[in-house]
């Protein structure tokens, strides 16, 4: 892609021609309407770059040397086959005389009888071959600038001669690339805008859309001259508009990069301050519209580049790509400063836009992948929870136990089947949710313990904390406590007898959490209150909990994996699972953010909470 852009830039050389520039520019302050003599003593040599503008009519004189050798071997003869033209641009109305002959007017300079008729900003005159000499030709211009804006004290006198056709094509050449970019930019601007408001709420896209819009305006302002032309009095206004747009772009570009690389608000404001100060400095202490535009844009690029490099250092995403983008696409500025601002800038910028679209599509693809992945994870977890109850080991052992109960104590068998049905019912209603009320989870655990009681001909009970409305409504992923109980069964050897599991809120942790949350409320709004649950499973004489799991945080068991996946799905990384042995108990301490079914305290998981409220209602 970079190659492509460079290709366009390099190919876009104007056709080889050799314009003839004027020499010996002089000025004659006189309102006379007849052509002054070439050797009139009042002629004063004058700089071409700042002709003073006034209502007074003055004459400008310069020499065009059509050298026979530089124009081919035939000299005058050649001009007959390819008519010469003269391009003139100055802020004023004027008439042009070649070797004393009147060859054209741009507007009409003021005369004693009539006021001035303003001329176009750019004008081209045919240099009739019958008046044209080989060697030096004297061109005189009668000029007045009654319509000059107040701010314009002087004007450059931009004049050169070339083949007429070449001159006629100049404007077309100048606007060709910018116009090509224009349609693309409109699309990109709209697309970024839509992307921001429809899918990705990333401010970077809004900034980019803003940037593109400003560029579209800048292109229009820049190309207006070549596209439509205008009479000279509007020139300064157009230049001011161009400068203003450049200023806005210079401010927006670094802000876009800041936003793209997700810098904080503080960075945003301070960068904006620096930019504004630098821009003011440029605007106040420098002259020339193009030069100031160039300086503004350079400052802006420099700051963007610095942030790009800083982002590379911080290993931010796409930092390399974007920084290389700035470097590569902006480097044509080194070739030719002014034609860069005029033309290559837009090509380069389109490259940058293309890069951003690339990044955008990648971001989209990643989001899609992440979404698919999370959907898959959720579905897999749901399936896993159901599968726990469908495993042959569970079902067939249970069926075997049921057969035995039927034969030896039919009434007990009915109780068994009822308990089993109850667990299946609960499982069916809970498995497709990401979060359920703690009460529901506890009820599920109790059903399971009842089943296990029948299977083991034992008594299992769950000691649970006082479930006030408040605490019972806390949210927890389904099957987490159930999995802890299942783990206890697979790691211990429970025979016939009485066993007790216990579930409690870790008071110490709760107090601590509340203390911390109150204290931190002033500093850190992100700290949310958390719940710590303690689950204790009685250890039998032989237990096979892997003590290595205590040091090694990676739980390898299927059950532990399930718990971790569920917690991650519901709370991101905002949870903690600690397991340890205390007395004769295997203790699991689970800390996770406190959210409620009622939704009054939940904020981050408001969406999920809402969903559950609806379902419980």
């Amino acid at each position, binding site marked *: 892609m970079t190659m492509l852009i460079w290709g366009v830039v390099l190919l876009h050389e104007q056709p080889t021609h050799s314009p003839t520039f004027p020499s010996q520019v002089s000025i004659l302050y006189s309102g006379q309407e007849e052509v002054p003599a070439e050797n009139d003593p009042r002629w004063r040599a004058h700089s071409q770059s700042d002709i003073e503008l006034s209502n007074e009519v003055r004459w400008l004189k310069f020499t065009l040397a059509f050298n026979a050798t530089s124009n081919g071997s035939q000299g005058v003869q050649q001009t007959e086959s390819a008519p010469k033209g003269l391009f003139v641009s100055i802020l004023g109305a004027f008439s042009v005389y070649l070797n004393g002959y009147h060859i054209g007017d741009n507007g009409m300079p003021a005369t004693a009888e009539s006021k001035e008729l303003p001329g176009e900003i750019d004008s081209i005159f045919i240099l009739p071959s019958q008046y044209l000499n080989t060697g030096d030709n004297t061109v005189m211009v009668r000029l007045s600038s009654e319509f000059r804006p107040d701010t314009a004290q002087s004007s450059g006198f931009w004049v050169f001669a070339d083949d007429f056709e070449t001159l006629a094509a100049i404007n077309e050449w100048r606007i060709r690339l910018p116009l090509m970019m224009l349609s693309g930019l409109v699309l990109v601007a709209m697309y970024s805008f839509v992307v921001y408001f429809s899918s990705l709420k990333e401010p970077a896209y809004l900034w980019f859309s803003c940037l593109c819009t400003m560029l579209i305006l800048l292109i229009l302002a820049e190309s207006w001259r070549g596209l439509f032309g205008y009479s000279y009095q509007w020139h300064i206004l157009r230049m001011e508009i161009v400068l203003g747009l450049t200023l806005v772009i210079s401010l927006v570009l670094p802000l876009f990069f800041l936003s793209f690389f997700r810098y904080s608000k503080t960075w945003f404001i301070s960068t904006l301050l620096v930019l504004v100060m630098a821009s003011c400095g440029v605007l106040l202490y420098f002259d020339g519209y193009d030069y100031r535009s160039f300086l503004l844009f350079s400052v802006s690029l420099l700051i963007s580049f610095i942030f790009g490099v800083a982002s590379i250092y911080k290993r931010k995403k796409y930092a390399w790509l974007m920084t290389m983008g700035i470097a590569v696409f902006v480097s044509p500025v080194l070739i030719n400063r002014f034609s860069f601002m005029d033309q290559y800038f837009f090509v380069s910028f389109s490259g940058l836009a293309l890069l951003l679209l690339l990044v955008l599509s990648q971001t989209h693809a990643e989001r899609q992948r992440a979404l698919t992945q999370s959907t898959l994870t959720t579905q897999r977890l749901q399936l896993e929870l159901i599968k726990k109850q469908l495993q042959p080991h569970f079902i067939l*052992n249970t069926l075997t136990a049921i057969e035995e109960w039927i034969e030896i104590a039919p009434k007990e068998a009915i109780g068994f089947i009822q308990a089993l049905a109850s667990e299946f019912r609960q499982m069916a209603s809970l498995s497709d949710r990401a979060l359920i009320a703690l009460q529901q989870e506890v009820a599920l655990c109790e059903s399971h313990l009842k089943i296990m009681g029948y299977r083991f001909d034992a008594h299992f009970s769950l000691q649970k904390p006082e479930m006030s409305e408040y605490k019972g409504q806390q949210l927890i992923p389904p099957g987490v406590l159930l999995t802890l109980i299942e783990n206890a069964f697979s790691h211990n050897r429970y025979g016939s007898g009485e066993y007790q599991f216990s579930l409690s809120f870790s008071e110490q942790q709760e107090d601590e959490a509340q203390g911390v949350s109150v204290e931190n409320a002033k500093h850190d709004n992100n700290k949310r209150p958390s719940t710590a649950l303690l689950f204790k499973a009685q250890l039998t004489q032989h237990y096979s909990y892997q003590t290595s799991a205590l040091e090694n945080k990676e739980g390898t068991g299927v059950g532990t994996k399930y718990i971790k996946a569920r917690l991650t799905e519901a709370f991101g990384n905002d949870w903690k699972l600690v397991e340890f042995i205390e007395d004769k108990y295997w203790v699991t301490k689970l800390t996770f953010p406190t959210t409620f079914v009622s939704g009054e305290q939940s904020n981050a998981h408001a969406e999920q909470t809402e969903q559950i409220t609806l379902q419980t209602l």
Partner: protein
Amino acid sequence: MMNITLVEDEPMVAKRLARFIDQCTDDKTTIHRFSNLDDAEEHLSNRDTDLLFLDLNLHGKDGFSLIHQQLAAPYHTVVVSANTDRALEAFELGVLDFIGKPFTQERISKAMERFSLHQFKGQCQRLSYRKNNVLCFLQVDDIQFIQAAGHYSEITTKDNQTILHDKHLDRLMQILPQGFMRVHRSYALPLDEVKHIEQHSGAKYIAHLHSGASVPVGRTKFNTLVDALGQ
């Protein structure tokens, strides 16, 4: 007189299994119940167990390694499991029977019958045995002949190694596949190892094997062997 050991972690299932076994065996049969193999280990090492009913959750990874260990033991193993999809694999390792859960009285009786049948042909492809207390495997195809050695069996492989197996020759014959034949009170061999049979004076028969080794053939087994070889 038969000693049966039962390893099953779910009390209700164990109770049911014990009840069924009890119903199809005589009064002289004793049943020992354990909830897991670790607890049963000491009891099993006494060598008085004849048959082990082992409940295995073959879903986990170590289920089969537990089977391997039991199969090197002198007693026979019947696996009782919910995971019936790996039954064939278990048979190839030399389990006497594989019973799926939930099981019926008839199925348990059939397993007990299988245990008492001496001519039962198994499907074992790979024998587990212990050598210096390390669990090893022997492909059944590599067996040249087997000689009874007290409670043990001495297996001679085709490359003339001798391996001592904890199982009695009678029990090995119950799990070894079709093609193995008991040719003598103390000898068994795969039929395709026999080159020819030589008759000595006094109705003594010797089977000469392809490897050059010779194995005595019992007088009562001679006709059956000749018949089997003729086919």
